[in-house]
């Protein structure tokens, strides 16, 4: 037992005056010269004392027999007999990995795909005439396309306003 262990094991006896003066002096001399022991207070030693008095646990009865059978099993087939059934982590981790990968793939697709993306279908199949707009970026074509869009929107608005006016007119005329 080195000095620190001896100091710790006799500290409580020392503080409670159960050591003779020579033993007390030895401990005091050690505490002056040892940074570890000089920092130990009564509280820490009480904790140490409490832990030392904790019960010793033991395995359930028949442990030796189970161990013997397990050693035989290891020698026969390389695997011990266990109390807890081991569930392999590989299927769980594979499932978790697959889930994360598919989640990530969907996330990337959603973030990177342009609005109105048609996927693998040719654009012309979805919007006839659009191929030309994408391919030809000249100002005239752009203008033309924007015009046509506006004109379509205008005509739609005209139809709507006509409708509204018509309806309104009906209501007004009804009053």
């Amino acid at each position, binding site marked *: *037992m*080195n000095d*620190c*262990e001896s100091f710790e094991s006799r500290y409580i006896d020392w503080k409670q005056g159960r050591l003779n003066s020579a033993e007390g002096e030895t401990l005091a001399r050690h505490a002056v010269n040892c940074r*570890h022991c000089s*920092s*130990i207070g009564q*509280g*820490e030693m*009480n*904790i*140490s*004392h*409490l*832990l*030392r008095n*904790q*019960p*010793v*646990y*033991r*395995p*359930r*009865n028949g*442990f*030796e027999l*189970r*161990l013997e059978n*397990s*050693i035989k099993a*290891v020698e026969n087939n390389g695997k*011990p007999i*266990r*109390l*807890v*059934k081991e*569930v392999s*982590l590989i299927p*769980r*981790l594979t499932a*978790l990995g697959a889930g994360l990968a598919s989640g990530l793939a969907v996330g990337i697709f959603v973030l990177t795909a342009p609005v109105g993306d048609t996927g693998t279908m040719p654009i012309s199949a979805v919007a006839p005439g659009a191929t030309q707009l994408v391919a030809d970026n000249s100002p005239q074509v752009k203008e033309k396309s924007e015009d046509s869009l506006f004109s379509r929107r205008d005509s739609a608005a005209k139809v709507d306003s006509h409708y509204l006016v018509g309806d309104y007119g009906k209501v007004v005329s009804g009053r």
Partner: protein
Amino acid sequence: MSIEKPTDEQLIREFQGGSAAAFDEIVRRYRNPLFSFIYRILNDPAFTEDLLQETFIRVWTNRDSYREVARFSTWIYTIAGNLAKSELRRQKIRRWTSLSGSSSSDADERPLEIADESSDPHRDYERRNIQQRVDHEVAKLPMVFREVIILRDVQELSYEEISEILKIPLGTVKSRVNRARLRLQKRLKDLV
């Protein structure tokens, strides 16, 4: 005339020479201290018994790799400690990957058996209550503090042995022990 008990090192030497009785004696000597040590790290009796068994199986199968440069106790505690820490890591992964988050052992609910139980039920009841509080608080310590405090104050190993088992400098062991005691002192002040 008293017959001196053989040392651990003598026993393992006999075991290396083929004596199964020497192995039985090693199991008898280390069964309870190692069970307490592993249990206080894992807090799961069924896993603890499996790891205790695994520790002895490793001693059995690797008996020839033990060299008398280190104490036998250092060697066997190193095996048990490494197994317990690996199991803790596995349990963390298991909890993380499990939807239910529950442990797989059915034996968890069984009360732990105490090696030196007295015949006074009232005293034993009080002891069990204190023991549960202490175990709970020790289990809440971070691993670096938990392992040193268990080895030093529960298992009563020397600082030097702990330093060899955990492969950390002696000064680090001492400072960790002090810090662990301080933490426990705050949490268990009503008991000390």
